[in-house]
């Protein structure tokens, strides 16, 4: 199936996501329709519990909608098998999390190279690419450091380099500045702007006004619905 809009990299049509919470049914998303253009930089904002992270998880193919359709880069992803979804994420999606989630047992370079190893990139090529990405995020001199030897801002930059390692179509970030102080947060905001300027499509979920303001477009959500795109 092709996406509804040719230039859209993300296309959601009437997406619903319900959860069972004990005996209750929680309607996390209630008919979301959204388009994200190639090269766009979208900030999804809204109060806690409005469904921002649920929406990001669906776009990132780590969750499946209860109903509705989702297409990423022209490919339907809403009913993929686990194997297909894993391969799709590996090749097309880059994830950045609030808590960085670097593997503490690996060095910065090894963390960045991990998705490339999974994608069966040759060892020499992945070391070269990981080194290049660490330089890009300003950590060329911290390759051998373990996450515990890096500051929060440095860890988040390693996580961004990791997200970029397989050249994803889409970079998704869930509260990427949530654990950082204002100065370090500003560095990450600046890095996202540079990435977007270099052609990366970015979707961030944030409460951070500065980060949201740096995006090209804001999508406001409330009670599981997009209220202003």
């Amino acid at each position: 199936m092709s996406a509804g809009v040719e230039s859209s990299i993300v296309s959601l049509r009437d997406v619903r996501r319900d959860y069972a919470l004990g005996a209750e049914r929680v309607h996390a998303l209630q008919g979301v329709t959204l388009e994200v253009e190639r090269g766009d930089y979208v900030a999804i904002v809204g109060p806690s519990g409005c469904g921002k992270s649920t929406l990001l998880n669906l776009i990132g193919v780590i969750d499946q909608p209860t109903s509705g359709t989702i297409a990423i880069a022209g490919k339907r992803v809403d009913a993929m098998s686990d194997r297909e979804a894993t391969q799709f994420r590996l090749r097309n999606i880059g994830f950045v999390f609030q808590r960085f989630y670097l593997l503490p047992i690996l060095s910065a370079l090894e963390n960045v190279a991990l998705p490339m190893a999974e994608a069966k990139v040759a060892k020499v090529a992945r070391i070269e690419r990981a080194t290049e990405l660490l330089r890009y995020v300003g950590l060329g001199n911290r390759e051998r450091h373990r996450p515990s030897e890096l500051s929060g801002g440095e860890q988040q930059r390693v996580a961004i380099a990791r997200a970029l390692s397989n050249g994803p179509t889409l970079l998704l970030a869930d509260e990427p500045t949530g654990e950082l102080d204002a100065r370090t947060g500003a560095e990450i905001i600046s890095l996202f702007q540079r990435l977007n300027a270099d052609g990366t499509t970015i979707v961030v979920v944030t409460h951070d006004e500065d980060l949201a303001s740096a995006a090209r477009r804001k999508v406001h959500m409330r009670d599981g619905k997009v209220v202003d795109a």
Partner: protein
Amino acid sequence: MRGSLALASLIRHRARTVLAVLGVAVAAAMLLDMVMLATGMRESFRELLLSRGFEIRLAPKGTLPFDTDATIPGVGAITATLRVNPDIREISPVLGASIHILAGNRDVSGSALGIDPRVQGDYELLSGRDVTRPDAIVVNDHLLSQVGASIGDTLVVATGYDAQTRTYSGQRKLVVTGRVKFIYGANDQSSSAMRRETLEGMNERSRDRASLFMVRVRKGANAEAVRDWIDEQLPNVTAISIATAIAQVDERLSYFRQLALILGAVSLFVGFLLVTTLVTVSVNERAGEIAVMRAIGVSRSHVVEQIVLEGVAISFAGAVFGLALGLVTARYLNTILSAFPGLPMAIDFFLFQPRAAWSALGLLIASGVGAGIYPAWRAASLPIAESLRREAIA
């Protein structure tokens, strides 16, 4: 990559990993000891029977060698019958008897074997000379210490004692010519050997009788076929080959083997539970980390491989330490059990066999794989979005 990730995960919690490895090592040591115990006595007994090269033993009908005081009459006739078979190389009739040695005013009880020194298979000479003369006797260290004698001393030996009249019968003076070690004898037995005709002369009732015949077959001959032939030719004896003796020992030791197998299985299960628990705890702790790995594109099968490898690594390390520990404890336990009264000195309860070690190692690695499967399944089944949400809340 998966291997180094698994190893790195274990190194991350060094203390916990070391404790788990030690736990598995104890279970592995127990398992090896039990595997050694299950087969050790049998193999040790087989080696003992084969040590002097006699493949067949003849005992009075329906008995095992020296199981009773019964004897086989007609040593000369039986020997002549056996010599007809070209596959029989040597025949060693052995007469057993209880003896009394009069040392001053003391009476030291013991046992004596009447043998032919040219073909005997009951003892090894440690020092001195064998029983080449009719008045010679060779004794073990226990008997020497009991009577306070040494090589060259003359002993007054009797084959009978009447408690009512307090008189000895079958008395004869014999010269100690050698110190020997009885292959089938126990440490705490006073044992001796003399020429069979000497012992017969001291006890008229045992003339031309033997308690046991030991038969050596020609090299390349089929011992089982010879045994069958003897059974046909000599209906008043039971012919026991090594294989039948082992089968009889197996039957008698079956409870021992069952106990060893049950304890071995329990050890394996304890090791399995230990590894499963540790790896499951580790997976629970790393739920967020595993969810992130899955989110960035690591496949379920690779997560499973990594977790199973962690279980195998703990089991393997534990097994290697455990096998060394098992050998040390087996040696110690063997020393204790070998001192059990009445057992042949040469019998080992715990006999190391490379096959036993490989079996134990194989079982432990297989249990490591098994132990990793449940936590690996849990890890691979974690819902990614839900796990990340829980992590964020935590």
